[in-house]
């Protein structure tokens, strides 16, 4: 019993219940005004009708008095009193003695009232007193006449209406409140599920999800959104965990090397010359660390959201060709045949510097991870339009990445074992992936038969027709080429 009371009390304290109670109260208030007005109007109408009849009767009786005097009046009143109806009469002389009529006395409510009014009387055939309306008729000093009407029927009618409304209001409010309780109970159950899920998530169980009813509707949409948000948070959290693990490895190792180099120089018996070498090596190591750090920060920044300030419109093909050409002497020296296939006129609105960084990283990776100077050592850089998707690809004929390792290779800091010994931050490909994501695109690692082909797809939304007239700087830039 107490459990039920508690549940009711809990339901009653909810917003849903409060809202339905407020709605019921408001509805009742409005209904009461309407009903009250109707009641008042009806009452007025009936009263006017009765008063009209009484006034007409009074006029007839006073003309009787004028024509036939008091005797004639008494006769008429007597006749009318005997009729079975609702008419009530009382005729008395100036001393107050009753002459004719079906009322026994002047109703005490009316004795002092010159305008008449409502009174109750005891009719002959009924036990309960009836309600009536009467007006006095002024017929001179020696006669007192009161004409009235029994309004018990109207009163009963009004009473029944009042009852009907009271019962109706009662039923309405109870039904409304019960409905409110039921609705709030329903919502509460769902909310309880959400609350308990979020509590266990707060306690550290990030894998929990909010159950869905499967019926659709707003609550399911809310649950779905919350679940998606939780997925994202879980992804970010595990990303963070992974990153901090990898930072520990990939930053601490060079830090340790830096420290070792400095210590070794200090211990070196050669002194001055060794110190210089040691310091130079320290600076080199510090620069490597800074590079790793910068790449890490850049990835973090790219994943945090768009960089609006530095979006430009440019010809992707021309730009990629340009960046590749920057590398062409370096690739040639490393023993690669560099071929550039850039489709011109693919204009995009994108972050030019970041796209450049991505292309640079890909070419740099191709040089680093595949062997130059052998027959067939070639790097192919392409920029093209795949339907409406601007795309860049860099392919090499090196060892490639096994299909099962490809997804992992795109993650931050991941360096596949084979490459651990090579210089680099291990962030090159993840940065490329982050740049692609920033442009709502993706990175695909494909087989280059043999070797690796990295395809960067930008979102088709990046594609623009051609620089417009408003981009006069761009037009000038092209003209200057």
């Amino acid at each position, binding site marked *: 019993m107490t459990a039920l009371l508690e549940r009711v009390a809990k339901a009653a304290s909810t917003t849903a219940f409060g809202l339905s109670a407020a709605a019921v109260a408001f509805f009742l208030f409005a209904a009461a005004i309407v009903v009250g007005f109707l009641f008042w109007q009806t009452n007025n109408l009936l009263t006017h009708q009765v008063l009209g009849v009484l006034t007409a009767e009074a006029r007839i009786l006073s003309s009787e008095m004028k024509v036939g005097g008091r005797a004639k009046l008494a006769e008429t009143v007597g006749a009318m009193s005997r009729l079975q109806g609702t008419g009530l009469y009382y005729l008395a002389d100036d001393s107050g003695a009753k002459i004719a009529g079906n009322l026994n006395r002047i109703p005490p409510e009316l004795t002092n009232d010159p305008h008449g009014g409502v009174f109750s009387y005891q009719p002959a055939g009924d036990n309960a007193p009836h309600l009536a309306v009467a007006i006095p008729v002024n017929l001179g000093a020696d006669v007192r006449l009161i004409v009235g009407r029994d309004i018990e029927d109207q009163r009963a009618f009004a009473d029944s209406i009042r009852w009907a409304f009271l019962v109706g209001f009662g039923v309405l409010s109870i039904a409304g409140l019960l409905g409110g309780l039921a609705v709030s109970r329903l919502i509460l159950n769902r909310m309880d599920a959400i609350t308990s899920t979020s509590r266990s998530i707060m306690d550290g169980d990030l894998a929990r999800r909010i159950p869905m009813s499967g019926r659709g509707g707003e609550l399911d949409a809310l649950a779905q959104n919350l679940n998606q948000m939780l997925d994202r948070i879980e992804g970010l959290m595990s990303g963070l965990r992974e990153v901090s693990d990898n930072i520990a490895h990939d930053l601490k190792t060079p830090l340790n090397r830096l420290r070792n180099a400095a210590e070794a120089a200090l211990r070196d018996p050669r002194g001055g010359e060794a110190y210089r070498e040691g310091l130079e090596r320290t600076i080199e190591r510090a620069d490597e660390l800074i590079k790793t750090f910068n790449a890490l*920060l850049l990835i973090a920044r790219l994943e945090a959201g768009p960089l609006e*300030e530095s979006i430009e419109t440019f010809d992707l093909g021309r730009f990629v060709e340009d960046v590749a050409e*920057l590398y062409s002497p370096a690739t040639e020296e490393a023993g690669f045949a560099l071929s550039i296939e850039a489709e011109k006129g693919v204009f995009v609105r994108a972050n030019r*510097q970041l796209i450049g960084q991505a292309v640079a990283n890909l070419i*740099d990776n191709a040089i680093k991870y595949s062997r130059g100077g052998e027959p067939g050592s070639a790097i192919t850089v392409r920029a093209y339009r795949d339907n409406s998707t601007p795309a860049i690809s860099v392919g090499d004929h090196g060892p490639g990445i096994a299909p099962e390792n490809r997804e992992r290779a795109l993650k931050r800091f991941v360096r596949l074992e084979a490459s651990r010994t090579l210089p680099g931050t291990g962030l090159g490909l993840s940065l490329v992936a982050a740049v692609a994501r920033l442009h709502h695109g993706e990175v695909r690692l494909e087989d280059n038969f043999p070797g690796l082909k990295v395809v960067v797809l930008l979102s088709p939304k990046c594609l623009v027709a051609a620089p417009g007239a408003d*981009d006069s700087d761009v037009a000038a*830039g092209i003209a*200057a080429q």
Partner: protein
Amino acid sequence: MTSSSSSVNHTAGLSRRPAAGPLNRESREGQDQNNAMRVLVIEDDKETAQFLQKSLKENGHTADLAADGEAGLSLASDGTYDVLIVDRMLPHLDGLSVIKSLRAQGDRTPALILSALGEVDDRVKGLRAGGDDYLTKPYAYSELLARVEALGRRTAPEEQQTRYAVGDLVLDRLSHRVTRGGEHILLQPREYRLLEYLMQHAGQVVTRTMLLEHVWDYHFDPQTNVIDVHVSRLRAKIDKNFDKPLLHTVRGAGYTIRDGPA
């Protein structure tokens, strides 16, 4: 303005050609000693500020220090400095506001922004605020010095020359012709721009990053040293068949083109 305008250009699109650079006075050779600059360092980190002051002094310049934005702004408003080095995050008044206030007063003293924020957007914001160059912490001092000297020695664009000469090497900006000792040298467009930038800064050290930013308009890390190969190809064309080398490598810093010992 020069460096700023070229940097702003890159944000606008494809214009990869750097805006016309600073003037090269032909009489510059060997003038380093008498080309001391007055530098104002607005930096709240005392150790960094003192390091800069000491290092700039060793390079023949004088440096005043201001530890916060307000002090920096009032010192800089005197207008007697050749270059301002402004840290971006400062107490009281941040670096960008200092530069904005100065520019609003009509003060065009070249400003190098130093910042721990090195992202693409931050650089663009810095240059839009009126900065002339942007260097991300941590930096190599040689990089900072080269940039400060490049800023301090430039002149108004209208004073720029149409012809640069270093020794017997001549670059004519109207005809795009390069000659050495009267002999025509055929350069690729990129090699021409590389030489043009080096000659604009004749006698000064130009770092690899400066070349990447101004000749290629790339503000990203190329990962490997791609500039050296381009410079050595240029060197092969302008120096190889001549007795006296003009294009020198400055160890640990970059390159310089000058008639005389490196």
